[in-house]
């Protein structure tokens, strides 16, 4: 029994030593740590194959790519730092940037008024519009305006402004918010919901990778009423972040045409298009 105890203790100490040495946490000054979900194509996603445009996910788990990753790369290059992608849950992004675990959030996050109370935002790096993703064979595939969605079961991602605009549909049956886009796609395909709110690029991605889905784009004036801040996406940083003006300079150097081109490249590149 004594020998076993000693052996166990040795094993514990050895393994703890290995474990403890892995607490190498601590961002060095030359790193630009960016938090993303890596689960919101075409803004950011995870893939297993490396390519010229991918960035390894910190801590293992594949490679990240997408529009947000490319923007992050441009910013990191402009700041002269190494880009490190930290995959984080959506709800953990703002706590992570405020606690200093990451330097910036570049995750398709909109600079809403509520978020501005906790973090600072850069200038906009993409402007989008809201659409609703639906099943091709569903009752709402040929809808054209908000009123056509009366009686539909609609949801959106938790803790996003997408969820707040659902009330604009008269007679909608609003469902509980879901925590990720893949979860909503699965719910839509199985019939649990009739549609979910999405930004246009993400809806294009979803329809490309799931042939049974399509999206409803609204004509000028018959869509959702939103403020410009709500349909744009910006980089979120801790309040008082020193390099915010530099980030804005770098973003200003990316023209509107560049942005559109980068986005369509990202849509074409995402994994499910193989």
């Amino acid at each position, binding site marked *: 029994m004594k020998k076993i105890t000693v052996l166990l203790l040795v094993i514990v100490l050895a393994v*703890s030593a290995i474990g403890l040495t892995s607490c190498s946490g601590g961002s060095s000054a030359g790193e630009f740590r960016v938090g993303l979900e890596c689960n919101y194509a075409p803004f950011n996603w995870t893939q297993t194959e490396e390519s010229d445009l991918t960035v390894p996910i910190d801590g*293992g*788990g*594949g490679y990240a790519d997408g529009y947000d990753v490319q923007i992050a790369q441009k910013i990191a290059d402009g700041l002269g730092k190494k880009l490190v992608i930290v995959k984080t849950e959506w709800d953990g992004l703002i706590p992570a940037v405020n606690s200093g675990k990451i330097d910036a959030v570049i995750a398709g996050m909109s600079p809403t008024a509520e978020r501005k109370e906790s973090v600072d935002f850069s200038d906009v790096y993409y402007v989008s519009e809201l659409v609703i993703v639906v099943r091709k064979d569903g009752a709402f595939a040929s809808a054209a305006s908000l009123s056509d969605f009366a009686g539909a079961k609609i949801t959106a991602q938790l803790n996003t402004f997408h969820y707040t605009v659902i009330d604009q549909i008269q007679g909608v049956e609003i469902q509980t918010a879901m925590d990720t*886009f893949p979860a909503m796609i699965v719910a839509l395909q199985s019939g649990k919901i009739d549609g979910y709110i999405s930004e246009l690029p993400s809806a294009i991605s979803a329809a490309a990778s799931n042939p049974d889905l399509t999206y409803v784009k609204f004509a000028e004036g018959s869509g959702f009423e939103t403020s410009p801040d709500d349909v744009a996406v910006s980089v979120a940083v801790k309040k008082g972040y020193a390099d915010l003006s530099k980030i804005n300079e770098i973003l200003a150097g990316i023209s509107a045409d560049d942005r559109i081109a980068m986005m369509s490249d990202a849509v074409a590149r995402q*994994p499910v298009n193989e």
Partner: protein
Amino acid sequence: MPDTFFGWVGFLLDKYGIMFLQGAATTMLIAVVGTLIGFMIGLVIGIVRTVPLDENSSLIKKIVLKIVRAILIAYIEFFRGTPMIVQAMVIYYGAMQYLSWDMSPTFAAIFIISINTGAYLAEVVRGGIISVDKGQTEAAHSIGMTHWQTMTSVVLPQAIRNIMPALGNEFVINIKDSSVLNVISVTELFFISKSAAGTYMKYFEVFAITCAIYFVLTFAVTRILLAFEKKMDGPSNYDMYSLEETEGIGHV
């Protein structure tokens, strides 16, 4: 792209096979180390809580012991009374923000599982110590052993044998509960599964694979622990009256 369920399973195993294995390895690492360290914490707490206090003890010893016991009870109640997922968020982000202590996710995972397990196992160990016949302690004291000697040479070996099933239980629970640590970006099995499911939008297929992997891990561990228990029992010629066979008819 595959069409059938098994087609998708094969495709996902092909693409993500290595990452599933890495995730499983991380899960086992944090579960094993976390449970072992938690067990050590539980042992120490169990011993401290059963230190005998009688009229002959000095006042200082009584006061110190009472304070230490109060602190330990607070620790146990807090870490048993809050979900591990909440503890993970509080410790991981709180440490960085207020203590400027940047932990790596894996270290944070081991830390959180250890103190959570320690709280549960402290009570399990205390139960094990109480279940050892009082005659053992009395006999040890009567031949002049100190409390520490009694504990380490007489009581604890028997107590640990008694609580082996509960320890195994806690270990298996930790293997599964390590999945909640995905919220602090630990790249364990559940985190990898969410990545794969998110990339290909295939929840059922991915999580069926994950389910199978968790089952294999926990089943293997249960069987290994059962074999270890049998070995700990030794040859049955020397069974003490207080030990019963774990399988079959218990005999006196």
